[in-house]
């Protein structure tokens, strides 16, 4: 396996490896660095600059606390219905419905008939007529609905900081005047039915009316003491403190590793051609399998190495924290998650890079991978949304242990699939290399055969 080490050294001596590390470290710096310190400090009583909606992860909740953080749930259907209706009314008025079918914005405009139906739905929910809907009182909807804060709820204090008025979710009593404030005239179940209809009217995925989106945007409620305790226990005993951090780390790193390794891999193989070294290398005794596998393992190793090193920035303080508090910490959480979540991803990406570079003698693998990356990032939610073919596992939160538990089987299947894709493409690459070494596959010839006559016809003559 001396070849493996030599290939690792070759990578370490290349310029592009340092570009890769630079980008990796820069992203890490912007996203994950300091998160651990912040949480540890918070537990010690130094809250972070912007608290947001959450509670300190590492602090044991006590009954005297007045706020236990918030969670996304369906506990408050009234709030959900209110938030969704407000959004629906606004979109109806402009006849522009936001959808995100592949993660990127797409505006849907409805026909007159469809708009009529939407109006009917609106009237049914609010119990108002069309004219009344056109002329709603200013405080018909409260300032804050779910996680969407309307502008007038914010005020500026003496220091020029923006503050929001928290809490005070509109408590609607059934006797409330439906003309003055929003009062849903339908049950939550029926409401969900109506929203399903809205979804099909719109016709695209990812609108605000899908059940997941409704809950995510508008279904926020406060956690109770018991729930906070449960979360804390999960963090300490199930996650052993480091688990949550490891997951968030892998979320950020996974984004980078879904794309950047391809540059490294492409360069390794294109270098053979550029240095005219291919003739020499191909005529040597070594089997194509050994050559491909050695280089493949070397790329995977060198890509994951900096990631592992970066994890220590978080691991070490957490170990110290655990020692201080007498809590046992999982030393191997980072390694576990890196191997479980990131390794299969890197395997797949690297293998695809080798295959397409060998096949086409060009860096087209970069474009292909970029496309996959864009689409995958677009369709995957920020956490808990791992599907069968997901490349990058997202888990953009320090919490959510149970999300992973619930999706465990799917995640494992998915990671096996990714690793399988990696191995498959390695085998295909070996096959391609075998033929290349015998001169049977020549990318330039194939290209010329397919596009040759087209190019000749389109030839602009003196175009450089």
């Amino acid at each position: 396996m001396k070849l493996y080490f030599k290939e690792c050294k070759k990578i370490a001596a290349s310029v592009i490896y340092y570009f890769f590390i630079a980008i990796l470290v820069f992203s890490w710096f912007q996203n994950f660095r300091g998160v651990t310190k912040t949480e540890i400090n918070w537990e010690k009583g130094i809250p972070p600059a912007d608290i947001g909606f959450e509670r300190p992860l590492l602090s044991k909740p006590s009954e005297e606390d007045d706020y236990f953080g918030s969670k996304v749930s369906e506990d408050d259907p009234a709030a959900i219905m209110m938030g969704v209706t407000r959004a629906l009314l606004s979109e109806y008025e402009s006849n522009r419905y936001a959808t995100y079918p592949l993660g990127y914005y797409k505006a849907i405009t409805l026909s007159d008939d469809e708009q009529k139906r939407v109006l009917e739905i609106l009237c049914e929910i609010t119990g108002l007529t069309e004219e009344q809907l056109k002329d709603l009182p200013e405080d018909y909807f409260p300032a804050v609905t779910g996680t969407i804060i309307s502008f007038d709820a914010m005020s500026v204090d003496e220091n020029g900081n923006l503050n929001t008025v928290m809490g005070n979710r509109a408590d609607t009593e059934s006797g409330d005047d439906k003309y003055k404030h929003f009062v849903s005239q339908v049950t939550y179940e029926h409401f969900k039915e109506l929203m399903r209809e809205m979804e099909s009217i719109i016709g695209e995925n990812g609108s605000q009316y899908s059940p997941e989106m409704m809950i995510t945007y508008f279904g926020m409620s406060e956690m109770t003491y018991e729930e906070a305790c449960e979360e804390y226990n999960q963090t300490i005993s199930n996650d052993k403190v480091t688990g949550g951090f490891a997951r968030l780390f892998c979320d950020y790193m996974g984004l980078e590793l879904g794309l950047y390794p391809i540059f490294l891999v492409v360069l390794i193989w294109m270098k053979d051609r550029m240095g005219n070294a291919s003739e020499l290398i191909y005529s040597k005794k070594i089997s194509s399998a050994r050559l491909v596998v050695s280089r493949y393992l070397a790329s995977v190793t060198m890509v994951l190495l900096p990631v592992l090193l970066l994890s220590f920035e978080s691991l070490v303080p957490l170990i110290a924290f655990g020692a201080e508090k007498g809590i046992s910490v999982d030393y191997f959480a980072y390694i576990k998650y890196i191997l479980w979540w990131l390794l299969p991803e890197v395997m797949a990406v690297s293998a695809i890079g080798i295959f397409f570079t060998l096949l086409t003698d060009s860096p087209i693998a970069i474009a292909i991978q970029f496309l996959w990356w864009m689409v995958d990032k677009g369709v995957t939610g920020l956490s808990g949304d791992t599907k069968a073919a997901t490349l990058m596992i997202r888990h953009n939160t320090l919490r959510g242990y149970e999300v992973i538990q619930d999706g465990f089987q799917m995640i494992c299947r998915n990671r096996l699939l990714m690793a399988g894709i990696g191995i498959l493409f390695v085998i295909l690459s070996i096959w391609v290399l075998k033929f290349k070494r015998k001169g049977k596959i020549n990318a330039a010839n194939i290209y010329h055969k397919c596009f040759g006559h087209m190019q000749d016809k389109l030839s602009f003559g003196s175009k450089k």
Partner: protein
Amino acid sequence: MAVKNNLILAAAYLLIIPLLRGIANLDMVRSAECLEQAVILTGIFLIAPLPAPEQSKAIQDVVCTKKIPHWKILLLRFIMSMLLLILMVCLFSGIMVWKNCIFPFMPYVAGTVISAMALGSFGFAAAIFSNSVIVGYLASIGYFLLNSLGNVSEDSIFYLFSMGKGNYSTKIWLFGLSLLVIAVVFIYERRKR
């Protein structure tokens, strides 16, 4: 010849954009988003790989001993690519308008072209200095993603998506920076040969 392949790739990319995101009925903010976050990538296709044909030393030795200095040829390619870029952005924006998007045409086209140019020139410079087009691609894509993932602050002069935030002054900075980078590259090329 060098430009033709890039052109085909760029055109193919533009055709893919409507499959991924909507280009119809967009309001001003969303239109800016579409243009800035998707269309400017054509800058990478058209500009970053311009030094590619002369990457091999053997070819360099041949090309650089001819009467016409190499940097002039590179400049010619660059200008041609810029013209193509402007053309393609105009075309795409035109299609967007035809599909009921609402936005100020000339300012948006200019803004998009400038961001694309910045993106492309960054990669172009990286490719020249490292003598590797792949490094150029990495630099460009890295720059784009750093913006896209929120790692570059909105107020920074390197921010590519300022149009969507209603801020055109960044564009002027970007334009200036691109020109500076291009100038440095060409002075370097001139000196080198």
